[in-house]
């Protein structure tokens, strides 16, 4: 029997995956004539070295937490939302639109802009949900298609209606901004903003909805076994649509992090931001739980920010971190391998 199982195993898989990912990343560096020790010390320096780097790490983690929550929430209902990237883009645009075009006191304007972003994401996410519930269309393909539609449509809307010099929209009004002079000052003037608070509230909401409400129970039941849920009188279609809406709302809120926090405007994007796809990695590594997702998002945020220092001091291209993240996903997805390895190691027996 399995020696290592249950909770411990659930924590072991991500930890071993990260270590294996970094290890192979190190081997790739060795093979291609970089110094892994120098590179990884630069990476750590780039994450924890000073207030600025730490601020930037947390800033980068904020949208990652929300996009991770989006993937995880859908996953709990047995759905795979690859459309976080598209939902993020429409959320970004909606929040910036509200941020630019309304004149309201901050206490109303800011929440309104955040809600607008979440709502736009929800609408973008619910379409694949409806198609799945009504026509049995696989959500993986529709959400991928919706990503591209979002990319082209948001760009077209900015070009047609909101263009400012520099291939972007105007800046949002102060009253809709998540920026925080206090947090910036605290972190040697990084771009850290109140988005991290929004992200943590998001994680709390997900935990509460999933584990403390009847709706959450139904959502999880559908995720475990659709047929049993149907038999127990739970409407599977309703829950699929609801899960995609909530998932999309998280993704849209991730877009507001960029729009109202980091950039204060929206650019015309020639390619995807990648934050939505990273959400898949975050959610996997965080085992689809609120706490795990926050930790995983901080890790990936740190890797991304640290990679910049790694490039400037050790000369290793930032793409290496992309490779490491890809490897981590492979290992987490193939947890069968790690289970087999750990069993081998601890017992010398077979699975």
């Amino acid at each position, binding site marked *: 029997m399995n020696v290592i199982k249950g909770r411990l195993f659930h924590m072991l898989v991500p930890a071993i995956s990260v270590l294996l990912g970094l290890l192979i990343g190190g081997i790739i560096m060795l093979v291609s004539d970089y110094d892994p020790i120098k590179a990884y010390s630069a990476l750590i320096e780039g994450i924890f070295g000073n207030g600025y780097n730490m601020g930037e790490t947390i800033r980068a983690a904020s949208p990652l937490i929300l996009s991770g929550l989006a993937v995880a929430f859908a996953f709990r209902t047995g759905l795979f939302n*690859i459309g976080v990237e598209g939902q993020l883009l429409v959320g970004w645009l909606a929040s910036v639109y509200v941020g630019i075009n309304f004149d309201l006191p901050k206490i109303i304007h800011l929440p309104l802009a955040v809600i607008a972003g979440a709502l736009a994401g929800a609408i973008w996410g619910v379409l694949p949900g409806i*198609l799945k519930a009504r026509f049995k269309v696989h959500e993986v393909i529709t959400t991928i*298609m919706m990503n591209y539609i979002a990319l082209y449509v948001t760009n077209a809307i900015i070009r047609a209606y909101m263009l400012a010099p520099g291939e972007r929209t105007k800046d949002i009004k102060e009253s809709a901004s998540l920026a925080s002079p206090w947090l910036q000052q605290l972190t040697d003037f990084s771009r850290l903003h109140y988005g991290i608070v929004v992200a943590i509230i998001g994680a709390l909401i997900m935990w509460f909805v999933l584990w403390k409400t009847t709706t959450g129970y139904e959502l999880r039941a559908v995720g475990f076994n659709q047929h049993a849920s149907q038999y127990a009188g739970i409407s599977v279609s309703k829950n699929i649509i609801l899960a995609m809406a909530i998932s999309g709302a998280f993704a849209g809120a991730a877009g507001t992090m960029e729009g109202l926090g980091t950039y204060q405007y929206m650019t015309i994007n020639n*390619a995807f931001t990648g934050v939505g*796809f990273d959400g898949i990695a975050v959610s996997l590594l965080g085992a689809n739980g609120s706490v795990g997702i926050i930790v995983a998002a901080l890790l990936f945020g740190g890797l991304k920010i640290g990679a910049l220092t790694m490039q400037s001091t050790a000369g290793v291209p930032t793409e*290496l971190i*992309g490779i490491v993240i*890809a490897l981590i996903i492979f290992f987490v*997805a193939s947890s069968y391998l790690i289970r087999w390895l750990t069993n081998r190691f601890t017992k010398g027996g077979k699975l």
Partner: protein
Amino acid sequence: MDFFDILALIVPAAIVSAAPLILTALGGVFSERSGVVNIGLEGLMMFGAFLGAIFTHYGEQWGLGAASPWMSFAVAIVGGALFAVPHAVASISLKADQVVSGVALNFLAAGLSIFLTKKLFDAGQTPDIQERIGKGDIPVLSKIPVIGDLFFSNAYSTSFVAIFLAFVVWYIIYKTPFGLRLRSVGEHPMAADTMGINVNKTRYISVIIGGAFAGLGGAIYVASIAGNFTQSTISGQGFMALAAMIFGKWHPLGAMGAALFFGLAQSLSITGEQIPLLKDIPDVYLLIAPYVLTILALAGFVGRADAPKASGQPYEKGKR
């Protein structure tokens, strides 16, 4: 501008844009018909494009001249096949979620190809290749009135290779014993296993052949359309090929037809400027057309499309 002038403008452009999509979609057909979902087509295509760009460049330096792109195609076929191995191992032997594994493959391709580009050339892009696949008239066929001008003049030979291969793949999948085995492990692996077919081996072969096709698709994209490799060379073409495969109902010729149609949509957004009727339609509608159509096709508005039954599920012996 009369009707034939418009056709003469659009049709060749569509066939050129379609060639990489056709090949990549055929790769998808191989993989998914055997029951392995392949979201990683984009990554496979990207890796093929990377290999295509660097080996055409080196071929030029080694004095291979016009043969350089063809050498790069051979490398991309092998490279694509090898690059599909992690996906095959993860999704077949390690029973990973195939969608997740495919996503990881896309990440890996993006990271690895740009990392190596920077390592090799100290820049974010490969040098422009000189020896592109040339346009030319196909002998005999280009002499046919009307059709010859439209389809066979000023055409890229690679486009015809792609179309020809679609028929080859159709023959392999529907007319050979290997094709029968391939389809059976994708529809009902347990029944296939009972009949003595090695499910995992068949799936490995299919995924790896799929990788070879997608790699070739990427290399042809570089040699005929892009001219070099950068971060944004392959941005969505792999997913569009995936869409073409679904739109074509997992059938090689259907996938080819859909890829040609998507190629048309792509070429319209490029040549649209010159066509009176299309000039006034904003670009965005042409850009999103393939994706919207795929969603409509999947929703059953353009005829029902059913995936191979076992697609997405790892096979475990003895599990019912």
